[in-house]
């Protein structure tokens, strides 16, 4: 199971890096989203994997998983959303100002249907 999680993190990272290196803004935003998934999962598994032991204190529970990475990741998920939103609006702004959706805002190029 641990190997599977490591594999999942690796696949998400690879997809994120590859998409983040694309020349158009939308795939870059997708890439950053993949990287957020990868980073959040990575931070989360730092608390090691455990099944059926949520960190909810009760008298019947015998063990708990580590709550600290969860608390860190919870806010990270929300912040990732803020970041994704910021980047995508930045991409829209760039397209409005520069007339195309290339990450470097190439001046000689305009969209086909702009």
């Amino acid at each position, binding site marked *: *199971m*641990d190997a599977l999680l490591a594999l999942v993190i690796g696949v998400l990272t690879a997809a994120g890096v590859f998409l983040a290196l694309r020349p158009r803004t939308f795939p870059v935003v997708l890439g950053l989203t993949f990287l957020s*998934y990868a980073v959040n999962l990575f931070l989360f598994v730092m608390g090691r994997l455990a099944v059926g032991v949520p*960190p909810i204190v009760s008298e019947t529970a015998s063990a708990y998983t580590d709550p600290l990475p969860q608390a860190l990741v919870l806010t990270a998920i*929300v912040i990732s959303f803020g970041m994704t939103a910021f980047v*995508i609006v930045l991409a829209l702004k760039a*397209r409005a100002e520069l007339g195309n959706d290339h990450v470097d805002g190439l001046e000689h190029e305009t969209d086909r249907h702009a």
Partner: protein
Amino acid sequence: MTLLLAVLLPFAGAALIAWIARFGRSATAWAAGAITLGSLALLAPLFPLPFAGETLIQQQDWMPALGLNLAFRFDGLALLFAGLILGIGLLIVLYARYYLSERDSMGRFYAYLLLFMGSMLGIVLSENLIQLLIFWELTSLSSFLLISYWQHREEARHGARMALAVTGMGGFALLGGVLLLGHMVGSYELSDVFASAGLIRAHPLYVPTLALILLGVFTKSAQFPFHFWLPHAMAAPTPVSAYLHSATMVKAGVFLLARLWPALSGTPEWFWLVSGAGLATLLLGAYVALFKHDLKGLLAYSTISHLGLITLLFGLSTPLAAVAGVFHIINHATFKASLFMAAGIIDHEAGTRDMRRLSGLWRFMPYTATLAMVAAAAMAGVPLLNGFLSKEMFFAEAAHIGQGHVGGWLLPVLVTLAGAFAVAYSIRFIHDVFFNGEPGDLPKTPHEPPRWMKLPVEILVVLCLAVGVAPGLVVGPLLATAASSTLQAALPEYHLALWHGFNAALAMSALALVLGSLIYLARRPLFAWHERGLDRLDARVPFNALLNGLLALAGWLTRMLDTASLQRQAGLLILAALVLAGTPWLAGDTPLTGTRRGLPLDAVSLATALVLVGATLLTVRWRSERFVALITIGVVGLVVSLIFIKFSAPDLALTQLSVEIVTIVLLLLALYFLPAHDGAETGYGRIARDAALALLAGGGAAALAWAVLTRPYDTIAGYFLDNSKSGGGGTNVVNVILVDFRGYDTLGEITVLALAGLGIVAMLQNLNLPASTCDGAGRARDADAHPAIMATLTRLLLPLALLVAAFIFLRGHNQPGGGFIAGLVTAVALIVQYLANGAAWTHQRLSADSHPLLFCGLGIATLTGLGSWAFGHPFLTSTFGYMNWPLVGKFELASAMAFDLGVFLVVVGATLMILTGLGGVHRNDTQKGSR
């Protein structure tokens, strides 16, 4: 506390003034005057203390662990300077009211002036050196604003930039010096510094410390070779010059000399560096002042020269010289402020400051002329005026120091020469302007200024006279207390009197007067000679060359490092990360797999993981068909939330699920304004290269995760699990960590979220984007924007969704849930209304503005934190209790819940703000289209 309040009042006042400015010019001036008086009134009850020989120190803990405390000191020197800053400040406030024209913004002027006043007060009242330094930097910044007040003038902008560059550099050096001083003494408190004077002077770090501190002092006080910024700062409005260059800004440097005199002075290094720079400045300033045709230019160099005189006195290191230095600070402030104001009046009423055009003004403004004459005579050192007294003490000290040294005659000769030039330029200031024939072609017909514009000058000139005639009575006690707190020792024997008998100082004074008059008479050939040679030297040339050189270097570096291609930059970044992370791992011999046994694999997990991997690969494959890519990435997000739920993280799963929904909605909205396809990608080489980078990065991340997962670990989780119920009152440990244990982090995070929302709204303003009319496959978009079934269903679902959100919020402290998740659920519920029913329909029922939500949320969260202060606990300490509600039963009420409410409101506000903002672009567009 009184001292802290007195310093903070002008800062608060500056903000207030900016608002009061709308009530008219006089109201603004009155308010500025009232604030200055307020600071003065706060300090007034403390005035008797220094006279009784007491030093008042008020402390407030700030960061005691770092030795940083808010510490204020009120002794004789502080009293003198606070008096000068506030007293002359008050006169400047009055004067500026009449000086500034209708076109100048009063609010801006007085706000800057008060900022500056507060910063100066902070310097002179500081006990802690780091705190002093902060106020020091604030004076640099606020003086920049004041000097560049007339922003439309190029010379004002350049002058301000130069002043900021030079004094800012000095401030940086001073920081180094102060840190070294603190390192030597082990404390930044002045009292401790004074107590370890011997240790400091004997320390091996004494010389670098001294050099750094003196760099700060010399740049601030315009000492040679850093004097050149001061004349360029004359581009400021005259009230600013009168304030900055008589009583405040430049005096901050000599103030620090006086402050640290007991700790640093008395060594040969101090003597040569300080008195050397002082002497050079004294001579240079006095000489150049004579040749300036601009009235303010003359006064600027005269200021430089007098600052040199004061610096020289402190450099001499004898107690008597220090007393003379303090005395001259008082005298220079009074006569120089009045002279600057007089120059401003002449400029204001005659329309020019050029002495080659001004002459014969006596006929038009005899009253102003009389005032200016008295002040100029004080500057020249004519008997019966204050300037004479301190200059006599200065000459006496110069003559005394010289005795018994080889070449000791040089110092008295040089200072007499400087005195002679001072006499010459003072005569020029009077004779060229008020006499010397008839006025030339002046832009305005000169006349006396308004009554209240003269009053500040009158007060200062009367002070010059009073001090000059009866020094012991008028200024004796003040000088005594200021000087004794400068020395931190018993005062030396000195007599404040007009007549000390026939002695060397008197002879030097007389010689300076005679010689100065002769120099003035011989001015024409001197001017011609000066203009042929020395006048061409302008420090601005090397300064600008240096500045341009630095800018060119920065530009070159940027061009070298920046390839202007995001792809290449990002690729290099990832490559660098791979190399840096990979090299030590490949070089080391640590095994990849550790000893910890993992969980067994089951078929469901494997299948789920395959779905995730498949969806990821599909997203990458279909990245150019953007709509498809969006659907597949949604699958990835959902599987991630399944992973969270599988491995005991219900809170994360809920958060991920709701975030996933808003993210997809957001990207869908954005797709509307972006091309549906990617353009063709150039070259398989680049794709292969990026794929290689991506595989390496992915492999690295997987290896790292595997290495960590197979190793045992220690966790601090036990503390949180043990204390969650007893200390935080909740059983959901993740939520208790968020709102209680690490509440401060959460406060920061919701602030970031709020900022992201505000930034997005700002970017969306005036955004004009062509909307697409068809989808990627070329099909026209559906005309039925709000299908009836969906609209009806979502309306029915709204109360249910809100109920769920409320439920999730309330149980969050004990069961999975909480402010973040409830906020996201609420946002989704509301967003769905927008999607199904349209913005117009929704806005009829719901305010379109989500700013109030953000501010309420942040406000509640912050106030909850501050609330614990009221009970004497640290920020964000939470409390909880149980109460029995009828029907509901036992119910827990925790202050953390209020904090969570703040989180909830911010999440709802920011999410709505982002999504409706983006939807709003759409709306504008269609409205435009339909008209």
